[in-house]
């Protein structure tokens, strides 16, 4: 009990004093996960929208596949990216294993299917609502898609935040491809794992509190976005 109280006190002291080690780790985590979200958005939003409005062979199979990829285990993604980037792998020449770039790649692979699948669902639902109205205005396929993306902006923000939530909290992939190297690839989740096993509970706890707060804020934004996207009388 004494230990726990001590850990909490020290943790809040670390946060309150803006401990440089803590800040560095949090900063790297945010940088890696936000970049991964940006990449996932660039790929996932347009692709998801195109799958939603498009009519092509194998569409159902594509949707099933992407939905299945939403549940990708982080460690498996880490392993695959490791194999790609290791010296004996096809992309070994790039020499980016154990760098933040490798972690960004792994997280982007992990969350792109999430953004893509949620976008597809959102745009498809909106299409049902707007299809006749947009066609009666003479809008072409690309204009219709652009309009639907804008109409779904609140829900699509939800999709991006869901991806961010997954990325920032995941430990398996960044641990494997990043290696948890001090000052280089140490993120909140890998640091928590390491410090806990070392017995430095206060740093682990401090990071855990920040991680929880970030997850809470992300979810609060999701809820707020959802509320504002719905008509008030429903």
């Amino acid at each position: 009990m004494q230990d726990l109280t001590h850990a909490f006190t020290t943790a809040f002291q670390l946060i309150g004093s803006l401990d440089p080690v803590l800040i560095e780790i949090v900063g790297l985590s945010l940088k890696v996960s936000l970049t991964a979200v940006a990449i996932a958005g660039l790929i996932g939003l347009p692709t998801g929208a195109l799958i939603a409005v498009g009519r092509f062979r194998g569409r159902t199979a594509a949707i099933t596949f992407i939905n299945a990829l939403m549940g990708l285990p982080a460690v498996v993604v880490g392993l695959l990216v490791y194999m790609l980037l290791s010296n004996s792998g096809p992309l070994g020449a790039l020499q980016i294993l154990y760098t933040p770039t490798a972690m960004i790649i792994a997280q982007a692979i992990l969350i792109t299917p999430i953004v893509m699948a949620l976008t597809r669902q959102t745009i498809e639902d909106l299409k049902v609502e707007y299809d006749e109205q947009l066609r009666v205005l003479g809008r072409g396929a690309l204009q219709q898609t652009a309009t639907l993306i804008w109409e779904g902006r609140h829900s699509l923000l939800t999709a991006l935040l869901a991806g961010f939530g997954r990325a920032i909290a995941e430990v398996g992939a960044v641990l494997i491809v990043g290696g948890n190297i001090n000052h280089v690839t140490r993120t909140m989740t890998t640091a928590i794992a390491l410090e806990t096993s070392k017995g430095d509970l206060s740093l682990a706890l401090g990071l855990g509190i920040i991680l929880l707060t970030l997850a809470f804020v992300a979810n609060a934004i999701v809820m707020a976005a959802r509320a504002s996207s719905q008509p008030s009388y429903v």
Partner: protein
Amino acid sequence: MQYAPAQSKLGAASSVLPVVGRSLTYKRDMRTIIDHVDAKFGCSRGVVAVLGPNGAGKSVMFRLLAGLLTPDCGSVTWAGLEPDRLRAHKIGFVFQRPVMLRRSAIANIVYVLAAAGVPAKMRDEVARHALEQARLLDIAKTPARSLSGGEQQRLALVRALATQPELVFLDEPTSNLDPGSTAAIECLVQRARDAGTRFALITQDMGQARRLAAEVIFMHRGRILECTPAETFFCAPGTPEAASYLEGKIVF
């Protein structure tokens, strides 16, 4: 002067009148919803009411003529030519349930003006003017989807009229509205009608049909049974189906 090309695009450059359906047939799940219907809209000024029981094929006929559905048989022409997207803004459509974009009321109108090719500089002014005409200027900045049902439908009508269409299809525009909102919609329709816009109106409200319609088309089981001046139709319907429909009996 610099707006001249766009204005001509909005003006009489490419007419869609008359909107004609020839031998239109539309089937869905083995059921024939529209059965070799010949219809012509926009020949004369005024409102044409399309009456008939549910399932008569009224809405489907409107959608076929507006180019929203493709007929299984027969053809639709706008001013003698096949429907095309460039002339789509010449045909307005107001649905039973208004479809509002998730933006402000005025942005909804600006959007359709953009779709109709109105230059960006003019859109805001045209939209404000349209709202003012309908006494909706005070809700210009309100998110369209938080408006009441009646306000949304009025906005939908204003939006449909903003691109100066030649013919507007109204698919039961007031079936969900209270008397006050219904009167507001009818007032807007009458004013646009007097300014030369032609209307085709589906309604189950016989009072509304009497108030607005110059002609009546009576449909039953996917066919047009009557096409007569409104007075004739309401005084002396020419078919037993129309007679019992007017009396409020169930038509089989």
